[in-house]
């Protein structure tokens, strides 16, 4: 346990000094750091569900998209202050999680996966069609940056530290929830729902709370996305973006909370570097994804455990 604590502390320490040690800080703080933290938080909402309920949800971009669109539309077209629009948008995104969760949690496994994918693709097609509300595929552009307590977050470093604070806070909350009796009951539902029911647990409320909590994280990441990208369009919730997110979660390790950030950092760096060499970086990401799925389904975080099992098997066989 102490070893992981030391590792975690050094990762956070590195993240804190990162803007001052990286070469070419103008580029890497934003395209590497902030981007990884934003995608990492979206991925965290997916990992949390997968780890604790064994459900892989692609609906997270739906919640992020709903929140992002509400913030974008209200601030650009109705001059609503962020102080009002951001909390309300996060609330709306989280509440939409109640409706989607109520339906989706009746299904399991690959059905759940398909249903949540359909939910996100549905938002994409709505955002494309509803010109009057979402401005179709042009989307909503030049969303202003927030100014909180005199700090202007159009500055890349300020935004990076804001994102870092959000990411660390959410990670700690997830870890804390997992250690409570609620978190332990969730793991029980994941491993054997029927048994939990016969033990007298009402499993649906447990699953609902976990799902709605993950949609809260996704909604927060939706606001981060709006502030980072400063625009929102149907492509922000499109098929490619959904797969991108899945790549992050799987490459990092879908059964580890930290995997979300490991995967996000890796993909942010990978895409930032490979863009200089080939314009087909999406295809390159796809190939990376397939290779990881075929060879190391537990992702990077699980690779040491995988090697250990492999060695043990080999030793056992000889």
């Amino acid at each position: 346990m102490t070893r992981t604590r030391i590792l975690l502390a050094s990762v956070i320490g590195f993240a804190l000094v990162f803007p001052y040690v990286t070469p070419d800080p103008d580029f890497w703080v934003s395209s590497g750091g902030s981007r990884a933290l934003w995608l990492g938080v979206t991925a965290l909402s997916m990992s949390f569900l997968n780890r604790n309920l064994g459900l892989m949800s692609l609906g997270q971009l739906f919640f992020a998209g709903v929140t992002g669109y509400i913030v974008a539309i209200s601030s650009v077209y109705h001059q609503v202050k962020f102080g009002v629009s951001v909390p309300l948008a996060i609330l709306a995104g989280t509440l939409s999680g109640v409706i989607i969760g109520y339906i989706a949690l009746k299904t399991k496994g690959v059905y759940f996966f398909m249903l949540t994918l359909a939910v996100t693709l549905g938002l994409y097609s709505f955002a494309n069609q509803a010109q009057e509300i979402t401005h179709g595929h042009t989307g909503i552009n030049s969303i202003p940056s927030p100014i909180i307590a005199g700090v202007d977050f159009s500055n890349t470093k300020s935004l990076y530290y804001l994102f870092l604070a959000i990411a660390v806070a959410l990670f700690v909350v997830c870890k804390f929830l997992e250690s409570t009796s609620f978190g332990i009951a969730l793991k029980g539902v994941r491993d054997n729902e029927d048994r939990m029911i016969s033990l007298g647990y009402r499993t649906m409320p447990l699953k609902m709370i976990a799902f709605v909590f993950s949609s809260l994280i996704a909604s927060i990441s939706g606001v981060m996305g709006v502030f980072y990208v400063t625009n929102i369009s149907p492509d922000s919730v499109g098929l490619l973006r959904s797969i991108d997110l899945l790549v992050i979660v799987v490459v990092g390790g879908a059964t580890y909370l930290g995997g979300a950030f490991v995967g996000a950092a890796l993909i942010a760096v990978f895409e930032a570097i490979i863009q200089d060499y080939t314009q087909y970086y999406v295809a390159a990401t796809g190939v990376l994804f397939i290779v990881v799925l075929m060879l190391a389904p537990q992702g990077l975080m699980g690779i040491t455990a995988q090697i250990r099992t492999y060695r043990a098997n080999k030793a056992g066989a000889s």
Partner: protein
Amino acid sequence: MTQVIFTFLNGITLAGLYFLVASGLTLIFGLMRVINLAHGAFYLLAGYVSWTIADKTHNWLYGALVGSLTLGVFGTLVYVLLLRKFQYEELRVALITLGVSLVLAQAMLAIFGGEYYQTNIPKQLSHAIPIPGIQLSYPFFRIFVLILAILVAAGLWIFISKTRYGAIIRAGVDDTDMVSALGINVQAVFIWIFFLGSLLVGFAGAVGATTNSFGMGSDGDYLLFSLQVVIIGGLGSIGGVAIGSFLVGVIGQFAVGYFPTYAGIITFTMLILVLAFRPQGILGRRE
């Protein structure tokens, strides 16, 4: 009244196309428990291939044939090389096929660019036919698509439930070990199912490329339609696909015609309502 009839015809002929698209997806899943999420990308690839051939040869049928066969072979290769090893891990297979769709999407964008294409309707089928009762005529090709869908539905049903091969396929899925013990090569059976399912989506792509324009992004659109159809109708059931296509096609067209801004929400509400009462879809079997 005229508009209602017209919208209904649009809806039901579109349902025919949706049926062709989604039947391959449900066939493969129903028989092999493999869900192919590169289905939309397969559809788009077939559209590009058939358009290219039809454009070069000026023959629609050649385009459709080459498009279907290319996809049949391509799908089989994807199955053999990437999926077969993990066939019993449903989610892993679904994820790998999503990776395939990512690679395909970019490859197609690199080759065909961001423009939109549409295959010419063959001359023999490009006329309009009068509709009894109202003063309007309707493009025959769209009716033809509906007829094709009905023929494919009937063919699949007869093949799977009435022939010896269908019996082997159903048995191979229910008890792989027992069927191999009887001397039947189950691996070959699975390859043929995958070939047939991919052939169907290839054919759907060739037909859809003629009725609607297609291009970058169509892969996501048609993946969404297929998912809606199979989720509503029940995954793995041919009859379910028919019902799902009918609902998504007809209600979708009325929504687009009368409430264009909220069309997406209306189809979506229908999906939520069906699932609230029947999580496994209208004709789906409970796990």
